[in-house]
């Protein structure tokens, strides 16, 4: 069995986008992530599943160093992006986050207009040379976030005035507007209705053509629908990681099986 896995990994190694080895995360004395090894491939959707509090968000935040903003948080191990250690001293987290974008678990639109929310990233990274370009980027991003039709007439209205689900899609639009190479999505659909969910899943599928996407989800169906790889976390450990089809139909670990069939949660 082990041999089989090794072979599989070797084949994939050439298009690994992010490779994490022996990652430990501590919040003060709380050991939240224990010895996690994961390879996230390019042009692939990777799903993180697992019961609440198992460390999915925490691990996701390691991948673009968002944990730097938490004082008590300490990350150990190596995480390579395109073969370069992102926790190396020479790496600027600002540049890293421009490449590895993030949609947060709770929608957090800025208290600015809808337009300015989406234009925020392109503006600071200088992606548009003039107003017309910026307009194009904003419209395209809002369309990809599946919210264009709802807000096209009120781009000047404050983003904080939208409903929870609309805010979340605005945040998705805001994240894709900077054209990241990797998009980390922390439960992007937890506040969305089935139609918007389907649209976001469509977006994820579209993004996969060019980028790699990591999505945290509590919906097994969603993980099965959108992802090619699935990682199952439990109590801070990575229990199982592999092809999504394999995980859902033929899990190796009894914990994975009981989680998927709804016996731990």
């Amino acid at each position, binding site marked *: 069995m082990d041999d089989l896995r090794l072979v599989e990994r070797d084949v994939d190694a050439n298009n690994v986008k992010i490779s994490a080895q022996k990652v430990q995360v501590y919040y003060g004395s709380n050991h939240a992530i224990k010895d996690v090894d994961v390879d996230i491939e390019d042009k692939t959707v990777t799903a993180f599943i697992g019961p609440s509090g198992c460390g999915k968000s925490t691990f996701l935040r390691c991948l*673009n160093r*968002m944990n730097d*903003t938490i*004082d008590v948080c300490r990350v150990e191990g190596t995480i390579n992006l395109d073969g370069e250690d992102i926790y190396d001293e020479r790496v600027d*987290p*600002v*540049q*890293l*986050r*421009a*490449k590895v*974008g*993030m949609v*947060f678990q*709770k929608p*957090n*639109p*800025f*208290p*600015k207009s809808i337009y300015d929310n989406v234009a*925020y*990233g392109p503006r*600071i*990274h200088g992606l548009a040379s003039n107003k017309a370009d910026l307009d194009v980027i904003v419209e395209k991003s809002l369309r990809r976030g599946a919210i264009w039709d709802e807000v096209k007439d009120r781009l000047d209205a404050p983003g*904080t005035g939208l409903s929870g689900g609309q805010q979340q899609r605005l*945040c998705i639009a*805001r*994240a894709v507007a*900077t054209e990241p190479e990797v998009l980390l999505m922390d439960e992007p659909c937890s506040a969305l209705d089935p139609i918007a969910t389907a649209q976001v899943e469509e977006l994820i599928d579209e993004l996969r053509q060019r980028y790699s996407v990591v999505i945290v989800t509590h919906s097994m169906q969603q993980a099965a629908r959108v992802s090619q790889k699935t990682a199952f976390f439990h109590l801070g450990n990575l229990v199982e990681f592999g092809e999504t089809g394999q995980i859902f139909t033929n899990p190796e670990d009894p914990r994975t099986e009981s989680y998927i069939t709804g016996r731990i949660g």
Partner: protein
Amino acid sequence: MTSILAALVFVAGFAAYFVGRQRATALAGANPAEMHSRPSYHGFFGFLIVVICGFGALILVNLVSSYQMNSAMMSTIAERLPSSSNIERQLIVSDARALAVGAVASASDDLRQELAASFARMANIWAWVRVLGVLGLVAMAFLYAQNKVSLTWRARNQSEFLVQIVLGVMATIAVLTTVGIVLSLIFETLSFFSKIDWRIDKFLFGTTWSPLSGVHSGEMDADKVGAIPLFAGTLMITMIAMVVAVPIGLFAAIYLSDFASPRFRAIAKPMLEILAGIPTVVYGFFAAITVAPLFRGAGDSIGIPIASESALVAGMVMGIMIIPFISSLSDDVINAVPQALRDGSYGLGATRAETITKVVLPAALPGIVSAALLGFSRAVGETMIVVMAAGQGANLTANPFEAVTTVTVQIVMLITGDTEAETAAGPAFTLGFTLFCVTLLMNVAAQRIVARYREMYD
């Protein structure tokens, strides 16, 4: 006398508590559940009713007695000296009171002696009325409360009702005091305006301020009450203070909330708050004794004449005084900006500077503006620093190196000067009322802005 009575009322109240609770406990016997209220509520009801009746009687008797004695003496004076003014009569009354208790009076003549004797007589009678009235009422309240103790008596509801009344009375007192102060400001202002023949324009737009020079008692010269030099001086000093305080305070707040290590923050924040605790009189003599000579010396060496009392010095020291005020309030609002917003910005690859200038500050701006407005209203009303460092002459100038005067300084001079109160009070109250309006406006504006800002995150 009164304090002994008050102590007695309290003793009776505690007695009512213990006796009432004792009786209720005995009455409940083995079956306390049948009683509507727990025994301690029966006791509490006794305490409340005794104390309320006792103090009510005490206050009532004191009010009535002082009113009666005063009006009796006043009418005597009115008979003897029909031509005397109200102030003279009040002076005689207070002299008579002083003589009656053997204290020092401003003068002692037959009338005063006679009044003192009659005052002593009346006071003696009232003392008995007070003791008997208060103790009698307390005794009645005590018996009433003990009599009420029974299984069905709703002592809990009744005591809650009494507590509610006491709280309501306290709240009313607080509100009425405010209303009273504002009303007296308004009336004094109106009476001042009537003395200058309602030339309010001359007060608001005139440029000569020397209200007490060459006027006969009780009169005002409309041409000499132009408050523009005062307003201009106040504005200039306040502006200098804001120019010092807003940038320093705001940058300090940004540094403390988003850059400083938790350890530094833990030390620096209390330090700033200590700065806020320095009495303004200390800032005042610091300005006058330390800063002013320093500035004058520096001015001399580069050829700019700086007066020893100057708007610049007063404004800068006042700015230093306001820094902690602005930094502490701004720090609070900047900290209130949710971490999720900062995360959102960092997550898009923004630097710390971009995050602060483009997300945090705009989100906190209403709070910062209101902090600045509150600082402004502090500066406008600040007195001690300007009294010591700004100057007294009503001098209309745009040069910050010269002495200017402020509204507050002029109020101080009017009230502490040796002109009789009746003449000086008019302009002082009017200036005070103007100041009150400006500060009120500022505070209301600040509160509105803060309220709107709160809505955004709730």
